[in-house]
């Protein structure tokens, strides 16, 4: 860093008098200020991240029953979790969501960003804001709204499908609840991802397109062969965000559970399962094991994804 040289050069007289020791000592003493600036955050970080993690891990190694009290059981809770069909089913559900929901969100966000980047009209500025607006809506409110829209009693589906003489699909039935949830999440988050991708596209030097046009590239070729590769690090980041969010899926199914009578069980996703275990059955130890196991799965998947895309993300 440049800080080491600056004091020496600006006080030449002093520097020659005191040899080299003084500025060095000053520099080193000053660096301790870094800890002071970081300390308040470090305190919160320790209390509300490290401590709960350690605590959850400890809790997950015990089991508590009325008869025997707290008993150390080692990895038993984890063995139980990874052989628990309900937990595994929940993991399977979020994995399925990740495979379908993330590409859906990315596709909408990327195509919207590419189209918006090509236009510079008031209409595109307006569209950009409108596509983003759902992000400002709390997830609970978003899920409540879609619950109403999906409902055969309140929703517009029957009149819209009626126009074409069709019967409206039952969005809240067992078979279609998956797609209905994918739609809610895509609606809520695609705009946020679109803004990140759009900002990255705006950061590209326009001179590059000029060269491509001279070489006879079409708009589509420019989009797919120049723009997308150049913003790959943003795309990787956006996918990581989506992955972390999807694997912890909780709010939308929890809210929709009430309207979708019977289509969403209390253990639909691992987070919902942990919540139910903890707050309906007071099984805090097993719930901690489930939470911790889920945390590890999320961490490992994010890490694997970052590793596989290390070239694109520039994290080599």
């Amino acid at each position, binding site marked *: 860093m440049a800080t080491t040289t600056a004091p020496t050069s600006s006080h030449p007289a002093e520097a020659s008098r005191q040899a080299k020791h003084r500025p060095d000592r000053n520099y080193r003493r000053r*660096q301790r200020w870094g800890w002071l*600036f970081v300390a308040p955050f470090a305190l919160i970080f320790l209390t509300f991240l490290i401590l709960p993690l350690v605590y959850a891990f400890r*809790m997950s190694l015990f089991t508590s029953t009325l008869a025997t009290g707290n008993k150390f059981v080692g990895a038993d809770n984890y063995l139980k979790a990874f052989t628990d069909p309900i937990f595994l089913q929940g993991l399977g559900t979020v994995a399925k969501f990740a495979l379908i929901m993330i590409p859906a969100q990315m596709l909408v966000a990327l195509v919207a960003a590419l*189209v918006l980047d090509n236009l510079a009209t008031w209409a*595109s500025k307006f*569209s950009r804001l409108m596509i983003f607006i759902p992000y400002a809506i709390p997830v609970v409110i978003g899920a409540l709204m879609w619950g*109403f829209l999906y409902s055969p009693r309140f929703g517009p589906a029957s009149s819209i499908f009626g126009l074409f003489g069709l019967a409206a699909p039952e969005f809240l039935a067992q078979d279609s609840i998956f797609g209905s949830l994918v739609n809610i999440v895509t609606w809520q988050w695609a705009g946020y991802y679109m803004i990140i991708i759009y900002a990255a596209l705006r950061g590209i030097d326009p001179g590059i397109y000029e060269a491509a046009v001279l070489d006879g590239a079409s708009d589509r070729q420019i989009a797919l062969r120049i723009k997308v590769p150049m913003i790959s690090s943003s795309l990787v980041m956006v996918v990581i965000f989506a992955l972390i969010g999807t694997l912890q899926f909780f709010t939308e199914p929890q809210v929709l559970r009430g309207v979708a009578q019977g289509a969403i069980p209390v253990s639909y996703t691992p987070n919902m399962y942990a919540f139910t275990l903890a707050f309906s059955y007071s099984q805090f130890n097993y719930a901690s094991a489930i939470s911790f196991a889920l945390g590890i799965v999320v961490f490992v998947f994010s890490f694997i994804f970052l590793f596989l895309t290390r070239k694109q993300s520039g994290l080599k």
Partner: protein
Amino acid sequence: MALVTDTPQQQDAGRKTRGTAARNRARNGGPRIGSHIFLLMLVIYFITPLWWLTVASTKDTAGLFGGSGGPLWFDDGFHFFSNLQGLFERQDGIYWRWLGNSFLYAISGGVGATILAVLAGYGFAKYNFRGRAAFFGILLGAVMVPLTALVIPTFVLLSSVGLVNTIWAVILPSLLSPFGVYLMRVFAQEAVPDELLDAARIDGAGEIRTFFQIALPLLRPAIVTVLLLSVVGTWNNFFLPLAVLSDPLLLPVTVGLNGWQALSNAGSGGEALWNLITTGAFISIIPLIIAFLSLQKYWQGGLSLGSLK
């Protein structure tokens, strides 16, 4: 990105690009009709639920079930103000208490998280203290830790110190924002030149004064972004308050409205509060929409921070 072009050439490139755009427009016949139709469809998709909510907030329960204009248009009767009155009367106006709680949690949690992130981001970016690399590495890992996995242990920890079911159970965990610190560090590294800090030090300013008078003004765009992200994050948080609060008077508006919805869905035994839910939801989203629209020039640039290295 390595920009080889200097300023005049870039301007030249910009002019040429505009020329290209004009040429493309001519080639495609008209001002990109296909793109505009595509955008229109996207806008309709993204805005319809909000339009529905706006319309629904003006209906009474009967109108919500079978109003004359259908779900996507106004009913004959305009019931927004009577719904509003219903929100004041229902359980002594508990809705407004919820809204107030949401403001309290979002602002104290959001502002607090931002202050911590600014200090820490600046500390990481501009000081080379012992243990910096290790701590920042741990912090980057923490960005990937699913925060909902922390809710249940946080609940148990808070209950062991008697903080469960108090406002602190929501505010204190909301102060944690590893991503905010990361954004702030990335931004501070670029936006606050070391030379400027050194100049201030030579002029005799202490570290604290240097931070407040030199660094802080330069960090303003990132501060607005982190503030907005953490306020929104706290305002939207559902899992944490759902787990740590049981007193109805302490709930934020999200958890409160969800409770009303559960009550209404309970069917014959419950009460139908549909009109209060829609009006309450409509009112609760207005503050954030205003915040985003009025601060857009800050966050739009700021959100790209994380994606650029």
